[in-house]
């Protein structure tokens, strides 16, 4: 509490013997150098551990034969997300909305596959087949059946998943948690 309890310590500034001065200077530089190296040696791996990003692997999730889908109908499809960690439990059970659009002029099956996460803040949207709208319970974002933004705060339409049809079966690329700058169209972060 007493600010001036001790007289000022002048030992550092008092002139030192020449030979000792050089040695002390060297020691200081060496200490700073080794200290920096030591800090980097511990710090960099640690930062890498915490902030490091595993390469996002591409998995394809089978969502059943195309013949199971009715044209112009949207359904919730659940699956065990292969992007999970082994101890994820039920939280690895993810879902997407699948809408079968029928065949295009080249007789290729066309699908719309949406993330359930609202493009506003990620809450789970609910599909209402009667009004053909997706409603978000959090801030009231609304989307049309084709995923386009209908009303409310979302800055864009629903996130589209990447899909393909292999041997008559619909497959979806395992979706990561989608955000505004990291949509499901991307394979890697950033």
């Amino acid at each position, binding site marked *: *509490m007493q600010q001036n309890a001790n007289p000022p310590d002048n030992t550092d500034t008092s002139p030192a013997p020449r030979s000792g001065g050089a040695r002390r200077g060297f020691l200081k530089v060496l200490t700073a150098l080794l200290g920096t190296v030591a800090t980097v040696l511990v710090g960099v791996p640690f930062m890498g551990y*915490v*902030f490091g*990003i*595993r390469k*996002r692997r591409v998995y394809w999730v089978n969502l059943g034969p195309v013949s199971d889908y009715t044209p112009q109908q949207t359904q*919730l499809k*659940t699956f065990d*997300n292969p*992007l*999970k*960690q*082994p*101890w*994820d*439990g*039920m*939280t*690895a*059970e*993810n*879902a997407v909305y699948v809408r079968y659009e029928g065949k295009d002029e080249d007789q290729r099956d066309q699908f719309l596959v949406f993330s*359930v*996460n609202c493009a*506003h*803040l*990620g*809450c*789970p949207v*609910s599909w*209402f087949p*009667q*009004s*053909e*709208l997706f*409603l*978000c*319970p*959090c*801030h*009231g974002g*609304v989307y*049309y*059946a084709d995923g386009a933004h*209908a*009303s*409310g*705060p979302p*800055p864009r339409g629903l996130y589209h998943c990447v899909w393909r049809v292999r041997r008559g079966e619909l497959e979806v690329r395992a*979706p*990561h*948690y989608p*955000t*505004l*700058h*990291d949509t499901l169209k991307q394979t890697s*972060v*950033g």
Partner: protein
Amino acid sequence: MKQDSPMMQHLKHAAAWCDHRLGISEVWLPMMRHPVPKSVEGPMGWWYVFGSASLTFLMIQILTGIGLAMVYVPSASEAYESLLYLDYEQPLGWFLRALHYYAGSGMVVMVLVHMTQVFLQGAYKYPRELTWVVGVFLLLCVLGMFFSGQILRWDPDAYWGLAVAGSMAGRVPFLGPVIVHTLLGGDIIGGESLSRFFTLHVFVIPGALLGLLAVHLWLVLRCGVSKPPRPGESVDPRTYDAEYEQELKNGVPFLGEAMVKDMLFSALATIVVVLIASILGPKGPTDPPLPTMGGANPRPEWPFLWIFAMLALSPRDVETFIMLVFPVVVIVILVLVPFVSNRGERSPSRRPVAVLVVIVTYTALGVLTYLGATAPWSPKMHAWTGDAIPVSMVERSNVSELVGSTVFQYKNCRNCHALDGIGGRRGPDLTDVGTRLTRDQLIDQVSNGTPGGGLMPAFGKQITPAEMTILVDFLVSLRPEGTKPAGWATPEPSLGEAPPQAAASTDDRDET
């Protein structure tokens, strides 16, 4: 003086040895006995109890937190089960969970009250600026504890709370995806996300909090307890130290009368929190954290309801700004408070602006929190099947209007529109819509939604002409008994001599 027994002598000797090595009577006792201004002993001293009450709650949190950590399993697949085990199996597990929640809530309240008192009484002014700044970061720690704690309650609110946090962080330009990945600890919300928040809640934030708290308390000791303000007494950094030193000459030791108030209040606050916990019981967990479960309706914890409300009410264009920049602005403003005004009057009666700031801030927070709790912007997901059409409307309806009201329900209109106050509140209550909109206006509104991308989506593609006709029959009928539909009595001049189309078609369908 009576000679001590040899045993006693040994003990005293040991005590003196410890005291000499630890410096308790040399350093710590004077610190505890440091004088505080005499008037703290008086009734004004009751203003000074909130900081120590926060500290008391912190100790309860540490105690209950240690207890909970003995049973809780921070694993995505087992956390939920371990919470249920705490609630139903572990003796008094429910009580510890309840106390941890309500003492945590109490801590937020006490910290806010403490901060408000310091602000109103100008206690942050010279030389206590840094105490305030450290306090601001302590508040952030407490809020961080609250948020990370909610995540550990591994239910849908936690799961979707993480989703919201991820989405907000994901809006950061360029770095967003990296931040999201760091926050969630992976590509999806799951085990590592929970572990990261467990680490934050149990190691990182408590560590920061205790470190900051040590600095905060040291600053309280070093700068001394502020004198209760009196109108007319002004802080001048050039003379304050001398005046304060003079003041302390008549001071009273903190370890004494002044501390009694703190202890009494802390004890009372603790008892209240224990009572609340034992009456209200533990909060949640609600449903299991199953991402595919329908009908999830996530809500943030009460300290964050105001942010929830702000995000719902802010225009789309400024939303990202509110999410990312606004919190920084608030923190910077709070940190700058003692540097903007670190001198002058301290008494609230001489600082109307400060009082006004407090009133406006708390009113805004209160209104936003209320809105966040009621969330009128959220569609009511079960309204279309669960909220009956008011019997009075059913009884007065003709066949078309009856079927029209089932179309109203079927098309999920009720999820956003109330009838007689029951139903969703995202859109306007339609009880009297027949007096406001004409038949043609209603058809246009339903078909094309709110003009200019407003709140109502367009139903044009999702409704058949027959459904539309019958639905609008019902909507036109929504008006008090005996009143004419909108557009009936006041034909718009622009339409010339012909009766307005709306009225004509209503006539055609309504009264036949």
